[in-house]
């Protein structure tokens, strides 16, 4: 896998926002990549910088408050940060599709379903309106919305939440992109619908060889659907591993904490869930050392002085940013 050409490679990305409280480093020097056809997850709690990472890739960070300060975003070898706005528009929608979190508000309420599907096709793939219409019906069928002919003339408010998210997926897939960024694609949906949507995403991704970046805070989603996982905390990646390895042998206390705080059906014990104590850090006042140190059970003196970098802990594919990761190797208990 490591030798394959990378589809998307983010290197040392640093995105910040100027707020009244001070400069917020929402994304602080992260590097990750996606191989063709692969599903990668970006996991973390609210405000850890996962959505900003995706928006940075699309160059949708709004100035003057938001700014990509540093780094490179290589898509098929081309640095997206060096493209003009005009060239970037050819990438958005055409090369990289995006699925948003809120299916209720991510569709334009006064534009028909048909128009919203055909607009991108006409613009990017230069289809005429009849061809675009045919393709739109085909797309609706692909994402499991029957009777596309009739659906095209309807408005988003006539669709249920699940159908709208299917519609969002159809829009993202319309121009046959190589990569889809799915930003919390199931957060706003019922649990039963969540599973359907994720199955759909996985099926379509496999069928068309589309790579996916799933952004989520739901570890269950990661376990079932992702090939590799990046765990983010306070704007940095603190652990990266293949999904199975991450679950079997977490090597960062934060990942361990996340896994322990999820109720599990396969362990019918009366064991109490172990929450991660404390609050996520204030991004305007990050400690000089490890950002997780104040909440960490494995904390040592060095953690407060020096931030650990992301290093290999278990082969080239498993990395963690923790001074004490070796202590976690044997399934340590805090």
């Amino acid at each position, binding site marked *: 896998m490591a030798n394959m050409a990378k589809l998307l490679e983010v290197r040392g990305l640093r995105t910040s926002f100027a707020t009244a409280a001070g400069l917020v480093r929402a994304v602080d020097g992260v590097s990750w990549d996606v191989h063709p056809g692969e599903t990668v997850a970006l996991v973390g709690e609210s405000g850890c910088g996962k959505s900003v990472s995706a928006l940075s890739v*699309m160059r*949708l960070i*709004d*100035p*003057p408050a938001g700014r990509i300060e540093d780094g490179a975003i290589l898509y098929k070898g081309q640095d997206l940060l060096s493209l003009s706005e005009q060239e*970037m*528009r*050819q*990438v*958005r*929608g*055409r090369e990289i*599709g*995006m699925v*948003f*979190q*809120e299916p209720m*508000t*991510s*569709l*334009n*309420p*006064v*534009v*028909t379903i048909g*128009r919203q599907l055909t*607009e*991108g096709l006409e*613009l*990017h793939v230069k289809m005429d309106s009849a061809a675009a219409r045919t393709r739109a019906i085909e797309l609706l069928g692909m994402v499991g919305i029957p009777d596309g002919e009739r659906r095209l*003339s309807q*408005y988003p*408010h*006539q669709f249920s939440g699940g159908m709208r998210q299917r519609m*969002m997926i159809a*829009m993202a897939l319309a121009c046959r992109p190589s990569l889809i960024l799915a930003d919390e694609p199931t957060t706003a949906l019922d649990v039963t619908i969540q599973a359907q949507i994720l199955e759909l995403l996985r099926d379509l991704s496999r069928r068309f060889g589309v790579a996916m970046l799933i952004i989520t805070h739901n570890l269950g989603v990661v376990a079932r659907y992702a090939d590799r996982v990046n765990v983010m905390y306070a704007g940095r990646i603190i652990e990266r591993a293949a999904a199975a390895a991450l679950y079997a042998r977490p090597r960062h206390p934060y990942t361990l904490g996340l896994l322990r705080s999820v109720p599990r059906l396969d362990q019918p014990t009366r064991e109490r869930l172990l929450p991660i104590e404390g609050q996520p850090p204030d991004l305007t006042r990050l400690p000089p050392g490890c950002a997780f140190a104040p909440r960490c059970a494995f904390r040592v003196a060095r953690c407060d002085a020096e931030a650990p970098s992301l290093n290999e802990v278990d082969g080239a594919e498993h990395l963690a940013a923790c001074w004490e990761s070796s202590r976690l190797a044997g399934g340590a208990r805090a």
Partner: protein
Amino acid sequence: MPPSSPLNETAAPPDRKSAGTVFATLVDFARRRPLGAVGGAIIVVMVMLAASANLIAPYDPLATDYAAMLAAPSEAHWLGTDAFGRDMLSRMIHGSRTALMVGLGASLLGASLGSLIGVASAYFGGRVDLLVQRVMDVFFAFPVIILALAVVSIIGTGVGNVVLAIATPMVPRCARVVRASALSVREMPYVDAARAAGFGHPRIILRHMLPNVMAPVLIMATAFLGEAILLEASLSFLGLGVTEPTAAWGLMLRGAAVEFAETAPWMAIFPGLAISLAVFGFNLLGDSLRDALDPRLRTQ
């Protein structure tokens, strides 16, 4: 006539196909919104009068009859005559043309330009927004009539120029109202989704944001209609609007109200009624259209 700007079409894509469904839609609209239908009927009558003015007006609106000056309403002159013996009814029928032209022209021009500026200002935000809004503030500093007067004194009188002059003070007011609602639309995820789909700025502003602020635009446009008719009368009063002998309600009202309000009240009452009725009709229709055009309020 409903104000059928190209903007409205984006708000409600025409999905009717045959004449039968058009009729059914109209009947349905009338049943659901009887007040709107009343407003629509007033405007339809006004449009028909304006269109067939040459056929139905009993007299030439410009023909003077010095034998029948200031004649009270009678069989020969249903609504009486003015100080030059011109038939009031004929002048009012012809006056509906001026009112429609100036009203529709000015409000469409003002609302279109204003909403475009408002949405663009909200969409780009930051320095663009700041600059545009300060320029609008400059326009705001002048009373409406002063601004209109300034424009007319620069470009001259005449119907076309009056339309331009009346539209000018409406642009900043519409821009400000539309900007306010466009700011909230700007924050909607579907605008980000449109950007993520690789759409350009003009397309997002015109196709994705503008239809979502049509409700305030429609309200502004209909409110402007009445105001435009009144403003045209004011300009005419000051000798800078539509000029005699053109038949215009504002002009008729003004001449009559000043000199003959007591001796020949019909000269003030009928044009005044016409103005009120027209404004009333446009407002009723505008309100109902706003509700009917919003697909979220529409049940199918």
